[in-house]
């Protein structure tokens, strides 16, 4: 049960990051100067107490720890869960929702996407433009490539489903659910998943439609 608490805790931290990340992304609609200045400002958080980019590295370390702990706990718990049900029923009947059934593989998809996403827009290794200090131009160059859009959209949809089930699950694991709050928490999970999915998807859609260029 301790591992489940780790899943829930790290999940909530990553979810908070995603909300801020999505809001930051939306600054792209205010034009290149605004967006690039915001990206540059991120490197100055904590100054003058912290040196340049220190805060960013602290956050990156924390998030990396979260991803690793979340993944390792998921792997260990899944192995135990699968071992606890060795024989399947001959008469199959799955009633769990799509979001619930896709938690494991959806999580793997999101994990692989994170690796590609960092190589693409942080290290700029696989970015078609890859000019440091010009995130706006890099993002636009990215989403003009059709398969980048496909990868991104699939990953974000997987992420939305993951949050839809994950947020409420975390609430359940951390003991925040009771009969009175159950419905409200489920609604929150759905709204959160929908808002994050829409917030992340609006950027490639805007580039594809020429709204952002």
């Amino acid at each position, binding site marked *: *049960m*301790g*591992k*489940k*608490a780790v899943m829930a805790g790290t999940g909530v931290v990553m979810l908070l990051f995603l909300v801020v990340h999505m809001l930051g992304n939306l600054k792209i609609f205010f034009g290149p100067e605004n967006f690039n200045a915001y990206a540059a400002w991120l490197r100055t958080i904590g100054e003058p107490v912290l040196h340049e980019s220190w805060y960013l590295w602290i956050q990156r370390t924390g998030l990396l720890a979260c991803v690793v702990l979340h993944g390792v706990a998921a792997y260990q*718990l899944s192995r*135990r*869960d*699968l*071992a*606890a*049900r*060795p*024989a*399947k*029923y*001959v*008469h*199959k*009947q799955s*009633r*769990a929702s799509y979001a*619930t059934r896709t*938690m494991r593989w959806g999580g793997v998809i999101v994990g692989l996407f994170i690796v590609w996403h960092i190589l693409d827009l942080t290290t700029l290794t696989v970015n078609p433009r890859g000019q440091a200090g010009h995130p706006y131009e890099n993002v636009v160059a990215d989403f003009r490539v059709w398969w980048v859009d496909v990868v991104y959209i699939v990953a974000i949809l997987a992420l939305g489903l993951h949050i839809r*089930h994950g947020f*409420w*699950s975390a*609430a*359940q*694991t*951390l*003991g*925040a*659910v*009771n*009969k009175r709050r*159950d419905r409200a928490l489920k609604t929150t999970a759905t709204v959160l998943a929908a808002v994050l999915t829409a917030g992340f998807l609006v950027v490639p859609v805007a580039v594809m439609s020429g709204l952002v260029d």
Partner: protein
Amino acid sequence: MNLTLRIWRQHSPEDKGAMVTYRVEDISPDMSFLEMLDVLNEELILSGEEPVAFDHDCREGICGACGVVINGQAHGPERTTACQLHMRSFKDGDTIDVEPWRAAAFPVVRDLVVDRSAFDRVIQAGGYVSVPTGSAPEAHATAVPKESADYAFEHAECIGCGACVAACPNGSAMLFTSAKINHLNVLPQGAPERETRVLNMVAAMDGQGFGGCTNTGECATACPKGIPLPSIAAMNREYLRALRKR
């Protein structure tokens, strides 16, 4: 009603087992599911075959002894126990699949009978209150708020049939364990052992080879006594509280 039954037959725990097809005829829609199996077994005995082994006791839906998976659902299509499920829930000519509970912690003993003593070991780890027994205590000696009494009773309804484990894709016993913990932890009589109860029972549950909860909600849907899914959250709350207090 005339029905085709496909029933799991397995001679011994070591036997591989397989689904075997039987026909039953002239079944009354007012029979319970177990009575229908009785009819089948009488025919099997008359024709010199081994009857289908299945657990049952009170046949009133209160003991928790019976329980089979019917068409992929623990206790079948109605929210009740297999003994209180009536054949009117099926249609004439139906093919019905009958399988034992499936979980690593519930090994098949024979046919539809599984060994559920893993539940007993979870109970032994803390599903009790340590009080001196003897003459009945004065009813007003320990005041229990109405809300707590209702909450305790809601969870005390669990009959330990194992449908939650059977329905769970992870073979998890968290709904069962949460019912037992919440039942006692909310009452003043259970308060002295509140922390050790949850820690020991959860440890026993994990030790018996049950899986963990992935919040699919199958358990609460299958539970014939309506133990709700938030009960697992309440157990998690108790568990985290006990960890902090230790």
